[in-house]
C-alpha cells in the first residue's frame, strides 16, 4: 500500500498563487507530525517497494507495547510540541486491531497534545473485511482514510496483484465515506497498454465518486519488485514515456476542470482538502516516525528505524527505541531537501525563507542561470518571492531539479 495523503479539514492550505505572503507558512513553531508504520500485509503487491512484510502471525500485544514505547522515546526527544497530524502507514495498517490504533492515538495526545483540527489518517485496503472495521477505526479517532483502490478495472486490479475487485472496492469506498469525514483513494495509471481514452474514462468515473482528494500515481517500476523482474525479462513493457506524458496532462486537465487541481506531482484536492500530514514532508516541517523503517526529521536530525520487523522488535527490547540510524543533517543537506521536496508542490518554495532557516545564502541554494534558462523554456517561474515549477515543468521535475539546485 502507499502512504498516501488525503484531505484534512483544518489543513489550511490556501490558494497560494494569488498571495504568496499568506502561502502556507514554512513551519510553525512547535508543530509536529507523527508517522506510525505498520509493516504487515496479507500479500506483497508486485509493484510495491515499501517496507511491507507478510508474516503468518503477529503478536498483537507485543506490537502494541513496542509501538507505544517507540512513541514514548520520540516524546522524550520532542517535548513541548503539538501534533497537527498522525498518519498510520504501511504495510496495511487497516489490519491493525482498532484497539491498538485507539491506544496509539490516546498516547500521542497524552505525549504532545493535539491541534484542534488535527488530521489523523489511516491507510486502508478496500476489502469487505476491512470495511467492516471502519466504524471501529472511526471511533478510535481516525478522521481520514486513504484507500488503496488502485484501479476501477478488474483486469488492471488482477495485473496489480490486488485481492479486491472493483465492486468490492467501491463498496468499501462507500462505507469509508459514511464512516470518515475525509476520504482519499489511490489510483495507479499508465499501466502497460492503457489507452488515453480508457484512462480518461476511469478518471472521470473516479472524480464522480465524490472524494475531496485523489492520489493519482503513474506506475513506476521500482527495483527489487516482481514488476522489475518481469520488466528485466521483457515480460512487462512499461508505458512509453511520451504516452505517459499524454496521460499525465489529461489527468491535470480533468482534475482541474473538476475542481481538484494538483497541489503536488501526484496529489489532487479540493482547496482546503490537501493532506496536511504530507504537506509537512514537502514543506520540511518536523515529523517523528515510529515503527519499522519509519523515517523522522526533527531538530535537524534524520532518524531511520530498523526496517525488518523482527530487527525493530529486537531493538525495542534492547534499547526501548527502534532507531537504526540517527544522522545530523548538514545545513546543505537540509536546504537540498527543502528544494527537492518543496518544488514538488504547486506552491513551490520561498528561497529566502529556506536561506533564513538553513543559513545558506539564496545564491548558493538556487542556480540563477539555470532558473533563467528554464524560465525561457516555460518550465519554472518566479512569482514574487516564490520559485515554482510550472504545470509544463512538473512532468520534467526530475530533470529540472539537478539544474536548479545549486548546492550539494
Amino acid at each position, binding site marked *: 500500500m502507499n502512504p498516501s495523503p488525503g484531505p484534512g479539514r483544518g489543513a489550511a492550505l490556501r490558494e497560494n498563487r494569488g498571495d504568496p505572503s499568506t502561502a502556507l507558512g514554512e513551519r510553525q513553531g512547535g508543530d509536529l507530525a507523527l508517522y506510525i508504520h505498520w509493516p504487515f500485509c496479507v500479500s506483497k503487491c508486485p509493484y510495491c517497494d515499501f517496507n511491507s512484510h507478510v508474516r503468518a502471525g503477529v503478536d498483537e500485544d507485543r506490537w502494541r507495547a513496542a509501538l507505544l514505547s517507540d512513541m514514548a522515546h520520540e516524546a522524550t526527544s520532542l517535548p513541548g510540541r503539538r501534533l497537527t497530524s498522525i498518519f498510520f502507514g504501511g504495510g496495511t495498517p487497516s489490519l491493525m486491531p482498532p484497539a491498538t490504533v485507539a491506544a496509539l492515538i490516546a498516547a500521542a495526545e497524552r505525549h504532545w497534545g493535539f491541534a484542534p483540527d488535527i488530521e489523523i489518517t489511516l491507510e486502508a485496503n478496500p476489502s469487505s473485511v476491512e470495511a467492516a472495521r471502519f466504524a471501529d477505526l472511526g471511533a478510535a479517532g481516525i478522521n481520514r482514510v486513504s484507500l488503496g483502490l488502485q484501479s476501477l478495472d478488474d483486469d488492471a486490479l488482477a495485473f496489480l496483484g490486488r485481492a479486491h475487485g472493483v465492486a468490492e472496492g467501491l463498496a468499501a469506498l462507500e462505507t469509508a465515506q459514511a464512516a470518515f469525514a475525509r476520504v482519499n483513494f489511490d489510483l495507479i495509471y499508465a499501466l502497460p497498454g492503457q489507452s488515453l481514452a480508457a484512462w480518461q474514462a476511469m478518471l472521470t468515473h473516479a472524480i464522480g465518486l465524490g472524494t475531496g482528494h485523489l492520489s493519482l500515481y503513474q506506475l513506476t517500476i521500482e527495483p527489487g519488485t516482481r514488476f522489475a523482474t518481469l520488466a528485466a525479462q521483457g515480460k512487462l513493457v512499461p508505458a512509453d514515456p511520451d504516452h505517459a506524458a499524454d496521460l499525465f496532462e489529461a489527468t491535470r486537465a480533468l482534475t482541474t476542470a473538476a475542481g481538484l487541481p494538483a497541489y503536488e506531482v501526484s496529489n489532487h484536492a479540493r482547496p482546503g482538502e490537501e493532506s496536511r500530514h504530507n504537506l509537512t514532508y514537502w514543506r520540511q516541517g518536523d515529523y517523528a516516525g515510529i515503527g519499522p523503517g519509519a*523515517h523522522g526529521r526533527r531538530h535537524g536530525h534524520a532518524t531511520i528505524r530498523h526496517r525488518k520487523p523482527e530487527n525493530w522488535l529486537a531493538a525495542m527490547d534492547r534499547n526501548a527505541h527502534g532507531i537504526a540510524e540517527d544522522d545530523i543533517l548538514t545545513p546543505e543537506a537540509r536546504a537540498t531537501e527543502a528544494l527537492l521536496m518543496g518544488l514538488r508542490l504547486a506552491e513551490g518554495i520561498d528561497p529566502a525563507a529556506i536561506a533564513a532557516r538553513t543559513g545558506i545564502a539564496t545564491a548558493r541554494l538556487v542556480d540563477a542561470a539555470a532558473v533563467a534558462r528554464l524560465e525561457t523554456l516555460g518550465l519554472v517561474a518566479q512569482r514574487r518571492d516564490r520559485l515554482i515549477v510550472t504545470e509544463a515543468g512538473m512532468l*520534467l521535475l526530475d530533470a529540472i531539479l539537478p539544474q536548479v539546485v545549486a548546492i*550539494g
Partner: protein
Amino acid sequence: MSKASTPLDRIRNFSIIAHIDHGKSTLADRLIQRTGGLTDREMSAQVLDNMDIEKERGITIKAQTVRLNYRAKDGLDYELSLMDTPGHVDFAYEVSRSLAACEGALLVVDAAQGVEAQTLANVYQSIEHDHEIVPVINKIDLPAAEPDKVKKEIEDIIGISAEDAVLASAKSGIGIDEVLEAIVTRIPPPKGDREAPLKAMLVDSWYDPYLGVVILVRVVEGVLRKGQEIKFMATGTRHLVDRVGCMRPKIEQLTELAAGEIGFITAQIKEVSQTAVGDTITDAKKPTAEALPGFKTVQPVVFCGLFPVDAADFEKLRDSLYKLRLNDASFSFEAESSAALGFGFRCGFLGLLHLEIIQERLTREYDLDLITTAPSVVYKIQLAHGKGELDLHNPADMPDVMQIASIDEPWIEATIYVPDEYLGSLLKLCQDRRGIQKNLTYVSGRAQITYELPLNEVVFDFYDRLKSISRGYASFDYHQIGYREGDLVKMSIMVNAEPVDALSMIVHRSTAETRGRGMCERLKDLIPRHLFKIPVQAAIGGKVIARETIAAMRKDVTAKCYGGDASRKRKLLDKQKEGKKRMREYGSVQIPQEAFIAALRMGDEG
C-alpha cells in the same frame, strides 16, 4: 657460461609462417618440448606469446626466438634457432627484419582450412628473402582434414612444391620428429665469415624490467662478445655489451655469438627508442665497411586521440604512454586538448591493430579508462600560393579551405581472400570505399581480390565490415602504395548549432553525406533527450549535409515522494550531479562521455 659458438654447418635458423589459429604456437611448443627446452611442467600453453594480448589474439607482437639443441638422425648435434615473427601487416617491416635473420621457414597450413591470405603475404616475403620453405600440413587428425587438397592449394596458389610436405598434428604430437628432420635436411645452414669485422642485425628489442633493453640480434659476420664496445651504425650510438646469450626459451648466458647465430645482448640501454629495428651493429673499434641493406625508419600511419575518461588520470596516462614507449618505439604521442574530451594525447600507430594493442594495454595493464577518437591517417596538404606542404595528423588542425591547394591521402594495395558466396558483397564494400579493382582470381571455391583503396576508408571500420559480410571467412592484408590526391573535405558535426571538435573528420566528398547521416543518426540515439529539442547536423564548411532532431524530453518525474524518500532523493541528486561531471556541454547540450565513446567506436556503423 656456455661453450663457444657452433660451426656454421650445424646451425639452422628458421621462422614459422602460419595463419592465426593454424597452429603455429602449438607447433613451436612441441618443438621446444621435443628438444628438451622446457620440462613438461614448465610448458604453459604457448610459451612464446608473452603478453596476455598475444595469447588471447594469437598474434605475436614482438619477435621471439628459441634456440633448440637437436641430435638428428645423422647422429650429429644441431643448433636450431626458431624465430617467431610478428604476425600482422601492421608490423610488416619488423616481419621483414625477422625473416632476414633466417634461411628458411616452416609454412604451417591447417589441413582443414587451407591457405589464407595473411599467410600468403608472409610467404611471399619469405620467398623474397630466398628462404627454403618447408610446408607443414597441420591438424591432419581433424575429421575435416583434406591434406591432398591443401597440398594442391599450396602448389596452385603459392607455386612451391608440396610433394614433400610434412603431415603433422602439433596438438597430438604427430609428425614432430619429421618436422625437425626436415629443418636439418632441407633448410640450408647460414653463411658468414667469422674472421671479418662484426656485422650483426638488430632484429628487435624490448624492455625488461631486470635487464633493461634486450636486443635480439643475428650475427652476419664476425663475432659479438661480452665486454665488446659496439656501435649502432644508423643511430650512431656506442654501447658496451654486458650480456650475451640465447633463449631456450629460458635465458642462457653465453660468452659470444658468432656469424650465423641468433641470440640476444644487453648493453645498459635504458630505452627501446635508442634502438632501431634493422640497424647494423658493428665493433666500435674495428667497424665493418658497409651496413646491412634494408634499414628504414618506421613512420606511424594511423593516428587517433587518446583521452582519459577521468580528467584526473591525465598524468597517469602520460606516464603509461612513456612506459609503453620504452618497449615500443614505433608509436608516437604528443599532448592534445579537446573542448569535448579535455586533455589527452594524439598518438600515432603502425596500423589499426597496433592502435588496438596499445589501447588495450593501457586499459588492462595500466588500468586506464580511455576515450579513443576516430582514427585518421596522415594527409599531405599542399598549401595554396606555393607555401609548401603540411602533414595533417588531426582533423582539428585542418587549415582554412582558402589556404589549401590540394590534399593527398595515403593509398594501400589490399589482398583479400574470400569464399565465392561472399564475393558480391565484398566487391560492393570495396567499391563503396572508393576501391580500384586490380585483380580477381578464383582458386578452389575461393576468390583472391586485389584492390587499391584509400587508407582512410580502411581505418574507418573496413575490417569489421569485411568480417561481418563474410561471416569471418574473409582475410585481408595490405601494404602502402603511396599518396594520391583526393577530393577531401573536413566534415564537422554540430550539436545544437555548436561544432563538436572531437567528432570532426576528414572524408571524401562522395562519402560525406552517407557518413554525415550515419553520425547524426547515431548521435540521435546516443544523446539523451533534453528539456528542449536539439538539432544534430553534419556540415561541410557552412553547408549542412545531414540533419537529425532529438525531440524534447516529455516526462521525467518521480510519482511518489514522501517523508521516507527525502534522503533517497538527496542521494539521487548527488549521483546526478556526479554524472554531470562526466558530461561535456555543447550549446547547452549535455553529452555523456559514453555517447562520445559510442559515436567514435570503430566498426559499428551500418
